[in-house]
């Protein structure tokens, strides 16, 4: 050990050095803490506003809220399309570790079909992984309960209430309304993505598609506070969605059902409209399908079956089914004949049972073997004499016939607010040259005279032309929707005239209308049996359109012709005669005679409409009758 003095001296020296270094350290500590405080000042005072905004943006999320789709009502307020709340099983793919294993486990609680799974996969692959996807729709109460008890086992899976489109009348209105379905990729490209942020369904067909913009409404937003995982903690602000507009249709639900029942199992179409407005009162196409199947995704087996069915239930016969109009166009041709001065009401045509063009041996037959003898205009319509109209058409020539019928609505879209109609074919010289690359022959015109040949029309076109007859010249564009209503306040859509009135002099209207009246009200008329005893005045015209060519000198035998090739039965008519309130067009596929198969359907529709709430009428006679009109035979 060194001497004590030295030790003490060393101690003092060591102590002094340490003291100096400690003071220096303390100064350094204060300086460094000041740097931290300066940093805090910069963050919390200088840049406070910026960070405050960033923090707000962090916690606040906008959640879109789907607007309730507008409802669809008939003219009396019967709901035809509504939104029903139901439970769906939703999966957030991001939150599920093993999707396949989870679904396998879920299947022990809830029935999940392969079809559900395929739909889910398809949706999942085109969405972002944190977006919930529907795995199963329309859960039963039992399934909801079974899941709820086990929900802890399934993170990322939840049962959610949803508003789903529902068509309470199912099949009856399928072709009239169309349906909604899940938004597909093509539709996604066409819609406003902002407004459809929360929407899962879109109008796919019919009115639902045509009025999509009005029915959909405007999306709402909920400003919510979320944590870092995106969990919603509370709602800060809510911008409610604006529900879509309700549609009030011209359609009469009761009439629609009456028309459907009248057709029964018969394949065909019925259109009833109000000639004063163009409003569609009934639009039936049989057979139909349940539109509810399409809303949440139709199982592929059912869809394939519908597609493959020979009855073609998905086919809208009323708007897209095109048929030769047959004799139903005869009154319209007669009007043109009178207007053009080719015939007068007193002109008599002799019907020997066939018609021949000059210098031709080809025989165009009358439906009645042996013919009707001397036929006037009135009688030609009542009995649907073919020879009269072969002659008239030949004399008029196709160049006068085509424009007349185009004005009546044939060969063009009639502008129905449904978007589903077909134009059919109105033959003309130009049409034949363009489509068939052939010249127009005089024989072609002869066939046009009885609504045969290349001609094809829709039931809607027939109804529209009949409405113009009933109104003696004027017609309105056919309309499904009568009024749009925003939160219960209806806004009526005024009728829109369908072109110029038909320029026909009153003295030319008279004989044709009277003949149509007698067709169904005079005992020699082809529709008399069907309308016998109706407590209102009415007028109409039957038609039987040929689908099968009978060989020269052969007889058409219904029993020997395959069902698919039998004649189509057609009917057009309106009532009451003096002040028409309803126009009906019926097309019954392969049903045979217009007078016996189509007219009774029209009778039932008119009975229902004109006598609603008054009384029930006896069912009209449906039995076959001798003297019934037959199709005019084109001989080949």
């Amino acid at each position, binding site marked *: 050990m060194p001497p004590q003095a030295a030790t003490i001296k*060393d101690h003092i*020296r*060591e*102590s002094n*050095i*340490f*003291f100096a*270094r*400690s003071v220096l*350290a*303390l100064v350094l*500590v*204060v300086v*460094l*803490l000041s*740097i*931290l*405080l300066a*940093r*805090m*000042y910069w*963050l*919390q*005072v200088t*840049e*406070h506003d*910026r*960070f*405050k905004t*960033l*923090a*707000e943006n*962090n*916690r606040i999320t906008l959640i879109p809220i789907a607007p309730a789709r507008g409802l669809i009502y008939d003219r009396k307020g019967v709901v035809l399309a509504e939104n029903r709340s139901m439970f769906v099983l939703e999966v957030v793919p991001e939150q599920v570790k093993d999707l396949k294993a989870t679904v396998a486990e879920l299947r022990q609680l809830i029935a999940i079909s392969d079809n559900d799974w395929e739909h889910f996969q398809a949706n999942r692959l085109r969405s972002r992984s944190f977006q919930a996807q529907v795995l199963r729709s329309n859960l039963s109460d039992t399934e909801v309960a079974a899941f709820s008890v086990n929900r802890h086992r399934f993170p990322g899976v939840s049962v959610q209430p949803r508003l789903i489109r529902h068509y309470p009348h199912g099949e009856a209105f399928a072709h009239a309304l169309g349906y909604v379905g899940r938004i597909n990729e093509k539709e996604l490209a066409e819609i406003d993505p902002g407004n459809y942020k929360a929407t899962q369904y879109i109008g796919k067909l019919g009115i639902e598609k045509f009025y999509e913009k009005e029915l959909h409404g405007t999306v709402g937003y909920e400003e919510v*506070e*979320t*944590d*870092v*995982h995106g969990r919603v*903690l509370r709602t800060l602000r809510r911008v409610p969605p604006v529900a879509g507009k309700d549609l009030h249709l011209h359609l009469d639900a009761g009439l629609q059902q009456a028309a459907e029942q009248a057709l029964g199992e018969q394949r065909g179409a019925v259109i009833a409209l109000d000639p004063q407005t163009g409003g569609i009162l009934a639009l039936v196409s049989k057979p139909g399908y349940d539109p509810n199947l399409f809303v949440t995704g139709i199982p592929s087996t059912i869809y394939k079956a519908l597609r493959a069915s020979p009855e073609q239930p998905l086919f809208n016969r009323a708007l897209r089914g095109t048929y030769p109009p047959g004799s139903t166009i005869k009154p319209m041709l007669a009007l043109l004949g009178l207007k053009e001065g080719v015939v007068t009401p007193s002109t008599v045509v002799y019907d020997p049972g066939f018609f021949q063009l000059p210098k031709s041996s080809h025989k165009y037959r009358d439906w009645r073997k042996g013919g009707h003898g001397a036929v006037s205009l009135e009688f030609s319509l009542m009995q649907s004499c073919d020879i009269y109209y072969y002659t008239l058409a030949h004399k008029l020539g196709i160049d006068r016939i085509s424009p007349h019928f185009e004005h009546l609505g044939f060969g063009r879209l009639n502008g129905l607010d449904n978007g589903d109609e077909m134009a059919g074919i109105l033959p003309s010289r130009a049409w034949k040259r363009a489509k068939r690359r052939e010249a127009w022959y005089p024989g072609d015109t002869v066939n046009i005279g009885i609504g045969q040949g290349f001609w094809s029309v829709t039931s809607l076109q027939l109804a529209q032309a009949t409405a113009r007859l009933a109104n003696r010249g004027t017609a309105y564009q056919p309309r499904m929707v009568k009024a749009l209503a925003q939160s219960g306040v209806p806004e009526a859509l005024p009728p829109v005239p369908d072109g110029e009135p038909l320029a026909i002099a009153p003295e030319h209207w008279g004989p044709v209308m009277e003949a149509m009246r007698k067709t169904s009200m005079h005992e020699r008329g082809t529709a008399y049996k069907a309308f016998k005893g109706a407590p209102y005045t009415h007028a109409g015209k039957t038609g039987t359109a040929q689908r099968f060519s009978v060989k020269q000198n052969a007889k058409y035998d219904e029993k020997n012709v395959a069902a698919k090739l039998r004649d189509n039965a057609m009917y057009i008519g309106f009532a009451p005669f003096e002040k028409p309130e309803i126009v009906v067009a019926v097309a019954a596929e392969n049903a045979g005679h217009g007078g016996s198969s189509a007219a009774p359907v029209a009778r039932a529709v008119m009975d229902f409409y004109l006598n609603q709430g008054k009384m029930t009428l006896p069912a009209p006679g449906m039995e076959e009758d001798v003297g019934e009109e037959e199709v005019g035979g084109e001989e080949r």
Partner: protein
Amino acid sequence: MLSSQPRADTHKEQRSLAWKLHIDVPLLLGLLVLMGLAQVVLYSASGQDIAMVEKQVARLGLALAFMFGLAQVPPRVLKFWTLPLYVVGVLLLIAVFLVGDVALGAQRWLEIGGFRFQPSELMKQALPMMVAWYLSEHQLPPKFKHLAVAFGILALPILLIAEQPDLGTAVLALSSGLLVILLAGMSWKLIAGLAAAIGGFLPILWNFLMHDYQRRRVLTMLDPEADPVGAGYQIIQSKIAIGSGGIYGKGWLHGTQAQLEFIPEHHTDFIFAVLGEEFGLSGVLILIAVYLFIIARGLYIATQAQDSYSRLLAGAITLTFFVYVFVNIGMVSGILPVVGVPLPLVSYGGTSLVTLLAGFGMLMSIKTHRKLVSA
């Protein structure tokens, strides 16, 4: 050991009681205030989980008991056990290197008899003790050869820790050892030379010694916005939390960044961001004032110590505590890289609590085992 002679002191009764219990009252008060504040913040940071606070309070109780226990051990006994402690620490680090558990991509844990612990935590206190012991055995200020040995004592465990890899602990352990050397009176010329050497070493460190994730942390610190969803996310969210707090804060339990869990590790390493958000600049000032008081008191105790070993150890413990504070707050506020250092005595967790309070226990021992020079 204790002197029975009276001393001129105005708080004779209190002093004598504290003296008997080997407690430094101002230091204890400072620590208790800090811990009290910490529990308030922790309750909010834990998502109002009182069970978490209770667990932390229980750990505090244990750690305080350990502190009081160590305070009873005289510095000479500490000095006696310093070398064995260091040797055991180094051996354990070697054991970790050879057979340690891997957690979160780093090999830090050692399991002995079902008890898992990190030898690097032990080394955080053993290292300054060892350097202080070695240097105090020779005349101060230290001669060059003694400094060289001291650096050797430092380098061995630091390299072992850095290899685990645990950059945060390595930096803290290194700084605690360096602080002893600086306090011992290493000449300014050598300090300047050393600083130059470190400056030259940095590129080597960056290019050859640092792991990818460590380099990424530094780069992220320099420009957090460059990788907002990845490595920069923590710093960005933490800065948003602190900055949005403003001067007075959003109020206790009302920090949206904290309560909605936007702040990462909000109850452990980033708890300072919760304080900054909910209590604002005023809360930060109070916290820093408490820390400054504890550090000042620690340095005071160091200057009052009677032998070199005690002085160096007390100074090193205190300044290491400060390094913790500075590195954590610097990291959370985005001026230092994210190195995984908890906010001392505030962050949730037990290991660092025990290490730190062990240090304060030694401080109290140094304070209360003085021989009275005036006797």
